């Protein structure tokens, strides 16, 4: 053991102990291309192959550059220690992103066989995660998400909460929503708004049509992200709140039918009161009399219909 020459084909890239995500980084690629490796990757020998403890990204770049052989520090170590060494090495050098933190949880659980309470007690602080075992257990499942979701999480285009909710969708649904989140840079509340409405309706038979409709909105060109979000939100809201939306539309139409020019008619948006607010501005007495006259000649049948609908 020690510094050895290792062939890239001997590396078990998929079975490494490292937590780095994503694997490919343009800057690292350029740097290795220019100056080569600055430090030795650390490996563990497994029969005639090697598992990576530290340096997965670097080796990934070497492979990409077509380099067949490189020098590495090969050590004899247990799987558990190899994982902890890899993770601590990364932690000492840089901040971990959320996917990497979840990879740490996965390794501590699956390689080190620690309980969630042990992980919470010993590692949550260094990972800057809440020390609640249930919470750690919950976010651990994010490792099951596809790369497209993990990349959005790394780029902070979606947050942990949204990820957890994405896990509850099936693959087809998730694909559509990841497309939405990829296209729109939504904050937590807006992303969850869309998901909230979708969760309300997703069990209905029309689920397939809804996803198709969302995709058709996404395909529309010349729509600004703001417009697109509003269209999606409005569409999902109407599906999730059919009776409320219908009542609201009906009242709005009835108010328009009153044809009161320059007189604003408002109704309680939550429908908790049967009341209308009439408001208008006047600039002179004539103007005032015109508006009062318009109100006194209001179509009583139409007005009564509004109160009925409210």
């Amino acid at each position: 053991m020690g510094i050895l020459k290792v062939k890239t084909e001997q590396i078990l890239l998929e079975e490494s102990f490292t937590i780095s995500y994503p694997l490919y980084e343009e800057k690292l690629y350029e740097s290795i291309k220019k100056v080569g490796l600055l430090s030795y990757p650390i490996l563990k020998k497994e029969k005639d192959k090697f598992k990576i403890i530290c340096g997965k990204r670097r080796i990934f770049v070497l492979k990409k550059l077509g380099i067949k052989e490189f020098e590495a520090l090969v050590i004899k170590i247990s799987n558990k220690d190899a994982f902890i060494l890899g993770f601590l090495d990364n932690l000492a050098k840089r901040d971990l992103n959320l996917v990497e933190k979840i990879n740490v949880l996965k390794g501590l659980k699956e390689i080190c066989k620690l309980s969630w309470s042990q992980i919470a007690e010993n590692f949550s602080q260094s990972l800057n995660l809440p020390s609640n075992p249930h919470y750690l257990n919950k976010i651990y499942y994010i490792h099951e998400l596809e790369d497209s979701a993990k990349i959005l999480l790394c780029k902070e285009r979606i947050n942990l909460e949204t990820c957890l909710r994405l896990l509850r969708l099936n693959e087809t649904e998730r694909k559509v929503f990841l497309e939405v989140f990829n296209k729109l840079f939504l904050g937590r509340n807006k992303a969850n708004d869309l998901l909230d409405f979708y969760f309300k309706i997703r069990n209905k038979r029309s689920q397939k049509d809804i996803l198709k409709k969302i995709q058709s909105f996404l395909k529309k060109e010349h729509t600004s992200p703001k417009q697109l979000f509003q269209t999606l939100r409005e569409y999902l809201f109407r599906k999730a709140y059919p009776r409320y939306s219908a009542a609201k539309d009906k009242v709005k139409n009835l108010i328009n039918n009153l044809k009161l020019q320059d007189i604003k008619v408002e109704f309680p948006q939550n429908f908790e009161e049967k009341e209308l607010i009439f408001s208008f501005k006047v600039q002179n007495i004539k103007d005032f009399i015109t508006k009062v006259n318009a109100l006194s000649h209001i179509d009583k049948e139409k007005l009564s219909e509004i109160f009925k609908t409210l």
Partner: protein
Amino acid sequence: MIKIKKIFTDKSVFKRYAKEISSICKKIKAPLVILNSKEDLYIKSQRLDLGKNNVYLTLQRGKILSKCPCSKGSISCGYFVLDTMVGCPFDCSYCYLQIYQNIRATSFYLNLEEKIKKVAQFLSKRKKFMRIGTGEFCDSLTLEDILPQLDILYFYFKKLPFVILELKTKSDNIKSLLNLKPLKNIVVSWSLNPQKIVKEEEKYTASLNKRLKSAYLLQQKGWYVGFHFDPIIYSPDYKDIYLEVIKRLRKFYPKKIAWISLGTLRFPPRTPQVIKERFPDTKILNGEFILSNDNKYRYFRHIRREIYKFMLDNLKMYFKDVPIYLCMETALVWKEVFGFVPDSKYFSNLFSSHFSI
């Protein structure tokens, strides 16, 4: 029977009630943890573990009797709340205790008798009709086997015939009541929901069958029983499933039904977040919830109106003389459903005449 896994108490409380605490521990066969500070029991960050199987033996230090807070702008039924315990071993997805409760245990008061005695003295002087219930912050009966309170309540309320005491439950734990002589002013009531909802949303509670069986048994023994369709949960098939429950009430003797209340699902704004975290598969959030004027999410008013009208019409078919009322509803909904808005005297007249008090 509910299994208690841990018992907590404070140092100071243990000093004062060592004998009582030791006997409780012996009976429950659960380990005792003496806390330096109540803070050790606080729920931190994520409210995932509410300590459903823990008990915190403590003292009732505040007001034990208070007016039911109802909801701003709602019609109050004049109910009073007796704070005998806080917390519940059941885990209903919609429960507001998830927001309200800040410790990982059910608080059980060791000084209950002292407090009830004072309340009883106050009420006996007041001599006014009142409805009081213990089921606001807890289930009135579920822990009765292991942490009994009924004897104390029975003893003091027996002497207060003009005060109706309601014990509200989702359990079938009625053994202690079966051994007591029924009192006209103690009502045992059940929260009812269709079995489908009980199964999906009311974790650890007794099935609808068991609840109705217990209620029937008690009524047969001479007790007054009450029913609360609260929270009514909307679903596309709500009419079918709730009608099924209403039909099952037909076997009850109407004169011995103290009241039936109706209330649709409602919750303060912070609740959906906690519900989503703790019950990711729940369907209760699927309705058309609108933020109402009291800053609570409720079903869109037209849906509430439809639900109440449906329930009332069907209940009235069998129980035209039983007091039926809406819980925490606005004057507008009352007017739309009942055709009138109750005034302050309506409820006391309604209940006192039903009980002939």
